[in-house]
């Protein structure tokens, strides 16, 4: 490995070091606050490192990794999300857990797993990244082991994730058996000479199980709502954003390398999955009274939308998908931020009736929630609208009509339940409940400010998307 390759891996090395540093800090019995601050700084360092090495990209580290512009964008998105989630975590765990420090080790390890996924170009690194992510998530989901059915959620996720890993491994073994290579480019080369064989396609099919599970696509979505509900809210935010960004980045690179979209079978499977996800997700959410479950169902539908951008398999689709993921992550993080801020030690703010008349009690938080819901619903002047618009326009260019029609129709259903939540925000029944005094004023205020910034970002992306689009385009050139 030469110097340039090593420097390209710098962000990931720093990310890996972050978890070790946290272990050391725990060993020296430093406080939660110190760990939080150091963790924050380490993540900033990762961002800085990514920025620092951007000129040397793209850089291949054979055989496992390739660090290119696309990976940098996804990693950037992941690190941004973990910065926000880390910040939200302080007030949440400080109040609930006598032992909140190991959480950060697991958080950073899971992030490392997701980041590894974005740069892997080999089954081995793909597998390890995915498992790093999964195993940390088992522990994270069940982290508050004495509350909120956390153990139940953890067990459900564990069994299903291990099951899907087994499918993934089996599929990879089949492909390896067929092509004699575990590197994506090697597979692609072999496929060029022998064409697609039944064995390869079966391997592809079983791999889709694992991807479908991680992205919570129908029919592998059944865990989503239960796990979203049972996890601590910051972890739910993590599952909804980072875990899915990583998996999608991996899917994208795999598809680009082997030209997945040239196999009609794969396109058919993904179209069916996309359609089923859009319909099922939106319909399941219709009557949901629990906000975390509602967001789970809505994210099922959203990844269905995202697959529509993935189906054409061209650059415009990639661009639209990345913009969609960015808009979606920011939106969802701010929604979860509101949940975290409103939750208290005794009571998780997840039932819809806790939001009744929130606008009159806490106008700013309610506005943030309303903006993020509007963005999820795809109302103009928010990030979600443009994201959906770009997905639609790539779909229109490639004439994937059926998924497009379903997208539009199911969005209309989606509008109903988002607006229902907004409606309850504005309902006039104000229960005379005093706002509890924040226990940790500094972190409380910084969470608050972050939320406002995120809401601003949502609007900014919706009004001035060209800057972001241009940035994404520039990075995508680096490959």
């Amino acid at each position, binding site marked *: 490995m030469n110097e340039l390759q090593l420097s390209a891996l710098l962000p990931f090395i720093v990310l890996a070091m972050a978890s070790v540093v946290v272990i050391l800090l725990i060993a020296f019995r430093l406080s939660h606050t110190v760990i939080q601050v150091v963790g924050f700084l380490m993540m900033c360092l990762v961002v800085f490192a990514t920025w620092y090495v951007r000129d040397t990209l793209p850089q291949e580290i054979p055989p496992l990794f390739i660090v290119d512009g696309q990976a940098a964008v996804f990693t950037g998105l992941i690190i941004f999300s973990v910065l926000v989630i880390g910040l939200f975590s302080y007030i949440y765990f400080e109040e609930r857990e006598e032992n909140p420090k190991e959480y950060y080790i697991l958080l950073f390890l899971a992030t490392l797993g997701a980041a590894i996924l974005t740069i892997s170009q080999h089954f081995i690194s793909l597998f390890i990244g995915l498992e790093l992510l999964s195993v940390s998530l088992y522990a994270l989901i069940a982290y508050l082991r004495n509350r909120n059915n956390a153990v139940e959620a953890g067990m459900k996720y564990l069994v299903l994730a291990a099951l899907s890993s087994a499918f993934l491994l089996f599929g990879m073994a089949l492909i390896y058996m067929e092509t004699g290579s575990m590197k994506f480019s090697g597979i692609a080369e072999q496929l060029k000479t022998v064409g697609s064989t039944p064995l390869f396609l079966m391997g592809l099919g079983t791999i889709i199980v694992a991807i479908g599970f991680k992205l919570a696509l129908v029919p592998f979505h059944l*865990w989503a709502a239960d796990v979203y509900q049972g996890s601590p809210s910051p972890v739910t935010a993590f599952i909804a954003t980072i875990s899915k960004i990583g998996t999608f980045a991996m899917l994208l690179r795999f598809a680009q390398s082997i030209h997945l979209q040239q196999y009609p079978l794969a396109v058919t499977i993904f179209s069916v999955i996309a359609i089923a996800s859009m319909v099922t997700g939106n319909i399941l959410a*219709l*009557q949901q009274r629990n906000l975390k479950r509602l967001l789970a169902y809505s994210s099922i539908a959203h990844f269905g939308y995202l697959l529509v951008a993935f189906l054409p398999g061209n650059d415009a689709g990639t661009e639209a998908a990345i913009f969609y993921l960015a808009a979606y992550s920011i939106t969802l993080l701010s929604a979860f931020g509101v949940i975290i801020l409103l939750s208290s030690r005794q009571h998780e703010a997840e039932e819809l009736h806790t939001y009744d008349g929130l606008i009159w009690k806490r106008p700013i938080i309610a506005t943030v929630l309303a903006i993020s819901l509007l963005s999820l619903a795809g109302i103009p002047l928010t990030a979600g609208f443009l994201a959906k618009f770009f997905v639609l326009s790539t779909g229109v260019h490639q004439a994937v009509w059926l998924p497009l029609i379903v997208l539009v129709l199911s969005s209309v259903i989606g509008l109903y339940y988002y607006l229902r939540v907004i409606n309850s925000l504005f309902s006039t029944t104000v229960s005379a409940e005093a706002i509890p005094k924040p226990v940790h004023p500094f972190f409380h205020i910084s969470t608050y400010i972050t939320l406002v910034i995120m809401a601003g970002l949502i609007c900014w992306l919706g009004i001035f998307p060209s800057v972001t689009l241009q940035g994404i385009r520039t990075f995508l050139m680096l490959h």
Partner: protein
Amino acid sequence: MQHYLYLIPALPLLGFLVLSMAGKRLSRNLIAGIGAGSICVSALIALITSASFLQSPPATGAYRQVLWHWFVTGHLSADVSLRMDALSLVFICIITFIGALIHIYSIAFMREDRDYARFFASMNLFVCAMLTLVMADNLVLMYLGWEGVGLCSYLLIGFWYETPANYRAANKAFVITRIGDTAMIIGLFLLFKELGTLYIPDILAKAPQQFSSGAHTITLIALLLLSGGIGKSAQLPLQTWLPDAMAGPSPVSALIHAATMVTAGVYLIARMHTLFELSPIAMQVTAIIGAVTLFIAGCSAMVQTDIKRILAYSTISQIGYMFLALGVGAWSAAIFHFFTHAFFKALLFLAAGAVIETLHHEHDIFKMGGLRKKMPVIFYTFTIGAAALAALPLVTAGFFSKDQILWYAWSANGGHPVLWALALMGAFITAFYSTRLILVVFWGEMKTTPGHLPGNAMTIPLVILAFFSVAVGWIEWPHNIMHVSLFSELVQQALPTTIMKGDLPHEIVFQFIAVVVSLLGIYTGYVLYYGQSELLMRWKQSDGLMNVRHFLYKGWKFDQLYDMLLVRPFMFITGINKSDVSDKLYTAIANANLYLNRIFSVSQNGSLRWYVTGVLIGILFIITLQLLL
């Protein structure tokens, strides 16, 4: 100066944001300062920019400022950009200048109102939306402004929402203009489909190449756009909302329902003039609608007793003149009438508002009377306004603009003697009801004791408006009398000149007839309403005439007509349909969704083994698909 173009709509927007966010916490003085101040500064910038535009007109004929590229995807690019050419300059100046005066007036007028901040916030938002409408250089942004003014109109008509009639009026206005808007957006889509652009200069340049004159598509597009204009400008057959819209506060009526928003239709047609020129049918329709509307609304105005409803019908009628002028191709005459009308109609509404306020919210003119001595300032300004409305020759602005329209209604290429005759009758009626208004309100004996008299903040804007109601006429003289035509020279930078018929009688003849007719109208009014006229008494005895009067009073019973033609049958059909197909269809869709929701919810039963089965079913599906393909 074009670098500051964005400030013109941005300042009112800023005012709106500040007032709507922090309105409850600010003192009344501060609210007034922000609300009126933002418009005043905006007006100042607009005037300075206009001055620089007039001194050295840009080579392209317009200032343009691109604020940002909203997005570019494929072949569709959307910019957010502003444009100021001769046409929008006139509108911008009117909106900001009259807007500023009305805001200043409102400071005192709304002083006692509970929702002071909400009022100014909505007014600021309105000004911003209206400016966006006229400054937009693509149709998307323009449509945004178009909907924005509709929304603000809705909010402000229903401003005193505690009274059910008020929000009913707001709803009515919203729904009826929505009919026009729907037609208009279809027209915009059609336009985009045909020309592939929504950038206004491109449209105007491309349309003549794309379409031959009188082609079906262009006629359809022009008619659809015209429908949008009809809805917004309260022309036949969508005029019924405007009289009810008087439920809003008087400054709102002055700004939105007299000077600016209701002329958006005029602006739209003038802006899209190339499309209309390509379609003679659409032009004729416009002219006919204008002429008929001005006559019908004028007749209704004659018999109303509510002072604001008189003015509302008169507004419909005056906009009818503008449509007539547009329809016959007298573009600059239409815009000139808009220009003068904005001043004197705003003046009339504000003065009427002052009268109503002083007389403890009395709207009925027959319960007023004798206010000449008590409220001299109001009296003089109101009289000037009414004189302008009646087109009193040579001294008022209304005369100059209306005279032009009358002349073109006959002589322009699209003109016709019948149109001219209708317009002439309209002129007579206008003069008549203006006189009636003045005589009934300010002469005779006092029937209601006036309360607190309006202060300076209210009278000064009136005086300024009164001055302009007289003075603005002088910038554009009939060219056979004096060669001053500043206005048409300006506007013709953006609009085509009027094509005239050949072989015409002398213009002076027409002017003479017009003058005589309006003086006759005034004289008739004087005869009938000065003192207790015998004639009027006798007419009031006659049943037939009273029926006619009632018919006119109800606005030619259009509401009843629509009720009969549309609402009742619709209710009837829905009544039959209550247990029938189309109703069932919608509930069926909703129910099907809820039913599916229940079925799918069963799948979320919390059982891990079932979830594993879900995974198995998924892989079975994938592998089976592979076997089948």
